[in-house]
């Protein structure tokens, strides 16, 4: 094991589960003395690559859909965080994720937290330039980050990050990697993630 364990979080702002997981990630990493890396991806690209439903949540039968959305609220209360199902769902997150790609890991946490909350708490349209500009402004980040989302080199960064996710076996969000290898899917697997950060290696890797 490395000196400090590494926790990677693959996420997309469009996932309510990723939002819930993201609210816990830093505290969890701190508890386990781990470094946290935010890895943006486009779920649309992932789902296309693996041949699944484009919006899995909406593919469930009505009764299951109702239960799953009810459960999101239970989780929010369990974690002690605010949550309101977004009125615009699914959401186009291309621009917001391209902004993440341009940030250093050290800057990502704040932007990720603020953007997730804009979508899953404040019900804002995070595909809107004005909304993104005000988030950047609030965090003291340059507005050029938004302008550059149109540049090919920035588009390529997000594509590479999404491809990396698919190559490593990601099929949904949030997906966690512990020390680059052990993969866990879901904000409801944080107990396993924490065990793994503390050295647990399941027989089934």
């Amino acid at each position, binding site marked *: 094991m490395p000196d400090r364990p590494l926790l990677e979080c693959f996420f997309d702002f469009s996932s309510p589960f990723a939002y819930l997981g993201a609210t816990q990630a830093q505290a969890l990493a701190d508890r386990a003395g781990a470094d946290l890396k935010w890895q943006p991806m486009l779920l649309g690209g992932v789902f296309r690559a693996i041949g699944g439903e484009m919006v899995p949540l909406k593919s469930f039968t009505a009764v299951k859909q109702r239960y799953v959305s009810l459960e999101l609220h239970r989780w929010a209360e*369990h974690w002690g965080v605010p949550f309101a199902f977004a009125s615009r769902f699914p959401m186009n997150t291309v621009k917001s994720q391209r902004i993440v790609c341009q940030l250093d890991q050290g800057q990502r946490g704040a932007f990720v937290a603020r953007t997730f909350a804009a979508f899953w708490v404040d019900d804002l349209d995070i595909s809107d330039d004005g909304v993104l500009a005000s988030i950047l402004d609030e965090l003291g980040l340059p507005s050029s980050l938004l302008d550059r989302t149109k540049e090919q080199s920035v588009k390529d960064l997000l594509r590479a990050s999404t491809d990396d996710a698919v190559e490593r076996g990601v099929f949904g969000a949030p997906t966690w990697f512990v020390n680059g290898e052990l993969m866990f899917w879901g904000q409801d697997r944080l107990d396993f993630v924490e065990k793994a950060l503390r050295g647990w290696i399941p027989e089934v890797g």
Partner: protein
Amino acid sequence: MARLEFFFDFTCPYAFLASTQVEELAERCAADLHWRPMFLGGVFRALYGEAAIPTPPAVKLERIKRDLQRWAQHWDAPFSYPQAHPNNSAAALRCVLAAPEHAAAISHRVFRAYWQEHADISDRNVLYSLLEDAGCDAHAVFEASQSDMLRKSLRDDTDEAIERGVFGAPTFFVERDHMIWGQDRLLFVEKMLGGWRPEGVDRA
């Protein structure tokens, strides 16, 4: 005493894992545990009709199976899929209904036979010996399980589950109204038995 219902079918590996934990959990929470057999095939028929039950893409399916094995390791309840899966569990489920005082013992024994010993639980002789292991009068229980009354009981209980919103196994109900799905939600079951009622969902 808080009421805890545990809806299950022997054919579900998640229900098997839950069955290894549910009694201790009920005891910790001083809850009144009810073993509630249901016929999962009937639940799925109600949900999907004749359409095929949707299966996730191969990449996801493979990871889900790994996740399941991690849980088995976590609970220290190793198991593997029998060749004859899914097997017909109706007779075994009716045996649980036929001997309510032995519900826990029969359920544990049948789950173990299915997921650890890969026994054919649809076979009359196999069931007989499992019932004996569970400490009941195998002949009487098996005969009762074949009656029209018990056939109707299993159908009724399955219908009840569907009406109450069940769509998979295991499903728990705390104090009748609070449904919790999945062996990976035992923490929520425990919290709710302790009185937890999330706002806007389980509390007005």
